[in-house]
């Protein structure tokens, strides 16, 4: 009795489960335009503005949600997230050194990129869940701000153990902690938490209602950027491109598992998996460039931007959701 109806009802849902979010098409448009050598180019000031908006909007959303809940249940989740932020770069470094045979500096720099997180991948994940009406804990925005840091710190420490060199820790801390990523995310969280759902209403049309449209524009620009990185992939060898897909899938599975253990809903565990599987291309590249000058950005950026980012926003997010629903009790 149930089976035929169940199958009929489930088939379209299961198929759309694996489709990327419509905003991803904007990314593909940018990518195609770049590969076809179109002269499409977004002004840098617009890129900066869109990035600023996304960071602030994600922070505000998280802050408003935090205001609704008590903070105590967050502690084990926070511990789980931090553990991911430390384990992922260590595993990445080990793999790149042993199987990938990369020099210490390059392996450490790439480990830092993968240990840190991508805010835009997270935003696409949120959008993907919202399109399907899947609930998630919005305070995960807090984890985005917190998870940016440990991966970068572990990467730098890995580069410097056994190869002592001078690091201007003060400047580096300033760069990472007061970079726009942390300032806007944390600032948005505080403002959203302080204002709460009612008092945030006057700014909600700008920051919440327009979110998807702005994300679409930003992804158009990222498509152009990624198109440029693809050319550099030829020099990266074979191991790194394979790692740039296999690594995130393994880390995503780990993130979904940890998320389930610390009590997140399948939607929340999906987002933690997205964070675990994503790699930073805003905070990490600058920090790594300053801290590990001898590491080549021509290796890390094509892997992070050319492969991992497109993989995550197209195939990765639906896959991580499968992991999360699979682990759910």
């Amino acid at each position, binding site marked *: 009795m149930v089976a035929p109806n169940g199958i009929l009802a489930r088939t379209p849902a299961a198929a759309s489960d694996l489709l990327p979010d419509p905003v991803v098409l904007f990314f593909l448009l940018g990518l195609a335009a770049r590969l076809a050598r179109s002269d499409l*180019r*977004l002004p*840098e000031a617009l*890129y900066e503005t869109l990035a600023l908006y996304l960071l602030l909007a994600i922070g505000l959303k998280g802050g408003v949600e935090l205001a609704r809940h008590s903070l105590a249940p967050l502690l084990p989740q926070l511990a789980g997230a931090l553990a991911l932020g430390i384990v992922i770069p260590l595993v990445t470094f080990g793999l790149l050194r042993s199987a990938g045979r990369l020099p210490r500096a390059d392996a450490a720099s790439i480990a830092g990129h993968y240990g840190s997180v991508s805010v835009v991948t997270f935003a696409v994940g949120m959008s993907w869940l919202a399109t399907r009406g899947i609930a998630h804990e919005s305070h995960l925005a807090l984890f985005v701000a917190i998870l940016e840091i440990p991966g970068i710190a572990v990467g730098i420490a890995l580069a410097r153990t056994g190869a002592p060199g001078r690091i201007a820790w003060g*400047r580096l801390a300033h760069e990472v902690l007061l970079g726009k990523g942390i300032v806007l995310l944390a600032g948005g969280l505080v403002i959203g938490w302080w204002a709460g759902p009612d008092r945030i209403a006057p700014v909600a049309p700008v920051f919440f209602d327009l979110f998807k449209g702005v994300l679409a524009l930003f992804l158009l*620009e*990222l498509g*152009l*950027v990624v198109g*440029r990185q693809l050319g*550099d992939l030829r020099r990266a060898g074979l191991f790194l491109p394979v790692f740039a897909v296999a690594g995130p899938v393994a880390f995503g599975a780990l993130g979904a598992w940890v998320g389930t253990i610390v009590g997140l809903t399948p939607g929340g565990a999906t987002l933690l998996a997205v964070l675990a599987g994503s790699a930073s*291309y*805003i905070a990490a*590249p*600058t920090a790594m*460039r*300053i801290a590990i*000058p*001898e590491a080549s*950005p*021509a290796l890390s*950026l094509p892997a992070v931007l050319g492969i991992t980012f497109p993989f995550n926003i197209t195939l990765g997010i639906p896959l991580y959701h499968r992991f999360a629903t699979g682990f759910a009790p």
Partner: protein
Amino acid sequence: MTLETHPRKLLVIIAEGALEKSLAEDAMRLGAQGWTASDVRGAGAHGERSASWDGDRNVELKIVATQAVAEAIARHVLDTYCRDYSVAMFLTDVAVLRPEKFR
């Protein structure tokens, strides 16, 4: 009536955006009295940098100073940054009107 001018050096450093703060601080520490920075894009031995996102930014730093100071900064940049970063640098003669600003 001709304007009275004073010879100085203009040091132009074009480098990765990540270096902007360090370069400006080092220049001031080595005796420069000021600097001017702008975002630029271009291509060179390290490939093309189109300034379209954070990791792809280039900065051009201009410093007018006495020959001794300009050379000290240039030497410091050569020793400290040129091995690992993409840097282009050149010196030209310039004439300034207020010499006390560029000692």
